[in-house]
């Protein structure tokens, strides 16, 4: 098991200000599995990912990543503004102790992967929102972690770029045998990528439903079979929202 959570709860604040962000969430991700998580805004998805990345501790319950390295791609690009695109991608490699020449090659490869080779020397503020997200993706991939946690990574991208990156992500996931937990608001995107799609209930977050995706890969995001399942997931999300409202 790559990742396992058992009855994990997380609350923020104390007393009257206390917010229960996650309520006894149990889920597991198998090694090499691609799991997508959809849920309303504020339902605790980002909170869940920061627990899994070890940035925060659960208030209750247990969390096990089996010693696997996790990496998190934040909802915001969270790039280092003093480094260029290439510098941002290079830093995790340097921290891993990779040699300079090899580092340079790897940075070139990763930037090409996210189609930003021409922008290697630019600083984050000189890039568009979608470009920053792609640099962040390259930086996450540079870490060679076994578990990749992604928080709405492609929200700011146009449909074509997103489609291309879906293909790339799928390829990298396969090649490296990664376990992926991918958060998105987009049911189609979830079905396009996931082996399974989890639907989060809101306030507090809990896994409300689970949809296995049995469509053969490679999938096309505009295919009708995909749309059918996405519509079911969408209905389930609506139900959660209505319950909440």
């Amino acid at each position, binding site marked *: 098991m790559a990742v396992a959570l058992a009855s994990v709860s997380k609350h923020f604040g104390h007393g009257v200000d206390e917010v229960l962000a996650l309520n006894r969430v149990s889920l597991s991700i198998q090694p090499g599995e691609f799991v997508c998580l959809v849920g309303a805004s504020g339902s605790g998805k980002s909170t869940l990912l*920061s627990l899994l*990345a*070890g*940035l925060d501790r659960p208030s209750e319950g247990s969390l096990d990543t089996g010693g696997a390295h996790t*990496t*998190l791609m*934040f909802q*915001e690009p*969270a*790039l*280092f*503004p*003093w*480094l260029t695109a290439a510098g941002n991608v290079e*830093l*995790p490699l*340097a*921290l*891993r102790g990779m040699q300079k020449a090899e580092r340079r090659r790897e940075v070139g490869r990763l930037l090409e992967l996210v189609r930003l080779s021409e922008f290697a020397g630019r*600083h*984050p*503020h*000189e890039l568009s929102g979608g470009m920053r997200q792609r640099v962040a993706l390259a*930086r996450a991939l*540079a*870490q060679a972690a076994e578990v990749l946690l992604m928080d709405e990574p492609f929200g700011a991208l146009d449909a074509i770029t997103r489609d291309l990156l879906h293909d790339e992500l799928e390829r990298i996931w396969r090649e490296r045998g990664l376990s992926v937990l991918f958060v998105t608001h987009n049911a189609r995107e979830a079905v396009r990528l996931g082996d399974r799609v989890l639907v989060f209930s809101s306030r507090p977050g809990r896994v409300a439903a689970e949809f296995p995706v049995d469509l053969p890969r490679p999938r096309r995001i505009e295919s009708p079979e995909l749309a059918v399942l996405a519509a079911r997931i969408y209905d389930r999300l609506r139900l959660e929202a209505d319950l909440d409202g």
Partner: protein
Amino acid sequence: MAELEMELVGAPPARRANPRAARLARRAWAAAWPKLAAAAIGLGLWQLVVSLGIWPDYLLPGPGAVVARLALDGGRSDFYLAVGITLQRAAGDYAAALVIGSLLGVAVAASRLLRRAVGSMITGLQSMPTIAWFPLAILLFGLSERAILFVVVLGAAPSVANGLISGIDQVPPLLLRAARVIGARGPSLYRHVVLPAALPAFVGGLKQGWAFAWRSLMAGELLVNVAGHPSLGVRLQFARELADAEGLLAAMIVLLVIGMVVDGVFGVLERRIRSQWGLAV
């Protein structure tokens, strides 16, 4: 005065065949003319006060006489010796303040205990008039270079330290989380993320530290006349004793210009960092 300003504004930079050089010249001109205009206004006011005749010429000479004196001094080696001694002290003592301030800043930012112990004292030191340290410095070190060094460091290091501390405190939490995710811990966290992120505030502290260092140094050179070191401060003092008002004002102009040039260098550094980071408009 208005006429003079109009003339300054209106005078176009010399046209060049090379467009790059022309652009540079235009930019230099755009940066320079407000300063030149302000200097002209300042000189005008000075001349005005002189013309009122409140003080006799030999106590308050006009800008013309002082500029002529500057030109004269500028041809003499003892003038450069004095400027050299003062600049050398400024550089050496400021460098010491920079090192001490930075080490102190990192230590206080990193240790909660140390911060509770000396955090507010650093800010207190910053507001202490540095000249008040001289009696003690002279008692401890005599009329020596070390007395000046002591006071310059006390004057400038707190600003440097405070700049670094606030820079480290203000590192966006998201960047710290990103740093942890990519595996930056301990010293590498500092080296690759915290210190670079603190750089803009640190440069602000350096700039402020320079202003304090320069003031402390002048106070020191007036109070502590180290034998065989005829610095700019010593020249000021001698000029007063000899009632040489022209020499005194000429030395003061040199002090002002040095202070402004160094401040300008820090300003350029600050702007470059800000624009590289996308902080400036």
